[in-house]
């Protein structure tokens, strides 16, 4: 599916299934999705709450939140499928080495009783044979990249502001120079000014260090700023993947859901008489609807949509859509 002049794929996900075991049955949070990430690009993943994007995020590190588990599929990082590996192998060689995660900084993801320095040092020494001074230098270097001074290393998390914590999380996620960095809502809980700073920072670092990001968020505006390609998920399935231009451009997105999602985002320079919204609610993933999962809320659903699930088809170069209404261009 890739062209010759495109870069190699650092991440390839094929037919991934993530289910949750509950007392009421299996919730199919992510149900057979396939996508890839190229070196040096940012793939944004958007969708409503509950569409499966965060679940997918932690699954890429093979750490689905319990009671979730990987029910099938492959996750290939730099060509190696991590799904069949043991926990020990993943912990030693994959996590943070090949793929890391930047969490929501406002989350409580920094151990409150450890100083930043201790946290970072522990991570470095766990993965690399470094002397203390070498480790220290690297920590300071990366803190510098995110614009934080050296003395932060002696501080405890509660002494830092939200923005500072987010930067620490970014620095920690990058300093082992992994192939893939998964960013899970890194700016969601921050105020707008800090948000902008963090986004610029991420763009800068991507250029500088030639990183590949997966950027998960529900905020379309941020997504547009940051991503090269965008993946829209709905009810555990991929609705559409396309480049920034293809989705946001004049032609507009192809999948009905994507279109309505974009329409629902108020634009700064347009007058809006009424806020558009998508009627209905996301489906119950315990018993997903037949056929296309969006058909109950879709305004252009056909009979075929109710019965047969549309496959993800490349309708033009690097543009994939799963909809019976969208033919190849």
């Amino acid at each position, binding site marked *: 599916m890739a062209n010759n002049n495109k870069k190699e794929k650092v991440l390839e996900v094929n037919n991934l299934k993530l289910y949750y075991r509950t007392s009421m049955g299996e919730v199919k949070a992510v149900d057979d999705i396939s996508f890839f990430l190229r070196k040096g690009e940012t793939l944004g993943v958007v969708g409503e709450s509950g569409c499966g994007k965060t679940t997918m995020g*932690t699954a890429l*590190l093979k*750490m689905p*939140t319990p009671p979730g588990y990987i029910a099938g599929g492959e996750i290939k990082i730099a060509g190696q499928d991590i799904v069949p590996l043991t926990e020990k192998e993943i*912990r*030693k060689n994959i*996590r*943070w*080495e090949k793929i*890391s*995660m930047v*969490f929501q900084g406002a*989350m*409580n*993801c*920094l*151990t*409150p*009783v*450890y100083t930043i320095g201790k946290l970072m040092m*522990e*991570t470095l020494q*766990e*993965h690399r044979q470094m002397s203390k001074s070498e480790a220290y230098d690297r920590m300071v270097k990366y803190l510098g990249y995110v614009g934080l001074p050296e003395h932060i290393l002696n*501080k*405890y998390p*509660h*002494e*830092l*502001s939200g923005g500072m914590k987010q930067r620490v999380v970014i620095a*920690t996620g990058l300093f082992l120079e992994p192939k893939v960095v998964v960013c899970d809502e890194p700016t969601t809980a921050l105020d707008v000014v800090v948000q902008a700073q963090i986004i610029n920072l991420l763009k800068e670092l991507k250029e500088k260090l030639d990183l590949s990001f997966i950027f998960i968020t529900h905020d379309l505006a941020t997504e547009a700023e940051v991503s090269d390609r965008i993946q829209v998920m709905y009810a555990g399935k991929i609705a559409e993947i396309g480049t920034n231009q293809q989705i946001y451009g004049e032609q507009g997105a192809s999948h009905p859901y994507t279109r309505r999602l974009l329409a629902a985002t108020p634009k700064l320079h347009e007058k809006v008489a009424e806020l558009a919204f998508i009627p209905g609610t996301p489906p119950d993933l315990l018993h997903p609807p037949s056929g296309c999962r969006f058909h109950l809320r879709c305004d252009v659903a056909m009979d075929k949509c109710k019965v047969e699930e549309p496959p993800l088809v490349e309708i033009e170069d690097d543009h994939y859509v799963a909809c019976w209404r969208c033919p190849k261009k």
Partner: protein
Amino acid sequence: MYWKYVIKRLINGVIIFIILVFIYSVIFNVQLEQTVRTMIEEKVRAEEMALSTGNMTPQQIKQYSQERRDHYYRIYNLDKSVPERVLINTVNSVVFNFGNSTIIKSSEGSMDVRTIVFETIPRTLLLFATAAIIDIIIGLLLGIKKAQKPGSGLDKTTSVSTMIVFGMPSWWLGMLMMMLFVYTIPLFPSGGMVSTPPPEGSMAMAGDVLYHLALPVLTLVVLGFWGRAFITRNIVLGTLQEDFIMSARARGIPERKVLYGHAMKTAAPPIVTMALLALLASISGNIVFEGIFSWPGMGNLYWVAVEQNDIPVLMGDLTTTTMVYLSGLVILDLIYGFLDPRIKVGGKE
């Protein structure tokens, strides 16, 4: 930062102590006064008896005893008004000046209440601290094990056991243990801290004390470690579900370090609080327990004082127990503050 906290807590503790002693004085003033009056009457009567064998006329004796009575009233402040007396009593209690007991004597034979009470403190601490250390260690280890496999057979059965002993009075279990291991199968001594007569030599002495400690400590531990394990399990489990644990695992930190480093260090403050509070509660609450085992501590003193209706000792013991309890609470706060960097180091930049 931390020092400010320490000083604040210490001063707070002292102020509360003074307030409490004041409240005690107010409540018990009447009763104390009664006791003192009775004691004075006895003294004067005794003096009268001694004099009547001499060569004073009944008239003179009467006058003399009245003078003596006034004299005593002055010494014991009974000639002052109630508020004044309460104040004086408060001040006295704060500096641990409790006067003399009515009946009880210390092991050296002194009737000074302060001596009587203070010599019991180390004995109580010996018993309850020993038991607390053992059951905290067992409880901690068990609790961590339970938190690692929640919902497992171990977890469920130990939780049920916790609930079974939840309402069991420690002194009742003590009674049962005694009936079983002292009278039915004579394994342990029937009470006290040392045998009579006490053995010679410090090693033998230590051994003897241990021999007497065994059954009460065993009783306390058997009851106590379940609760510690249960609370530890809950705290650790709660901590393990925090985001920073997931984050540590994502960073590839081995599970052992995650559990004992990240999780336990964060859980330490509430666990320590729980452990110390339990220790404090057992010290201040186990009056009957000491009584059953005739362990000569603060609690047993209480019991004896109640039986003998020795009010000064009772008051002195109450004040002293309050002080020990309060000190424990203050120390607890200080340790908590030390362990939790949010308090130790303070707020945001």
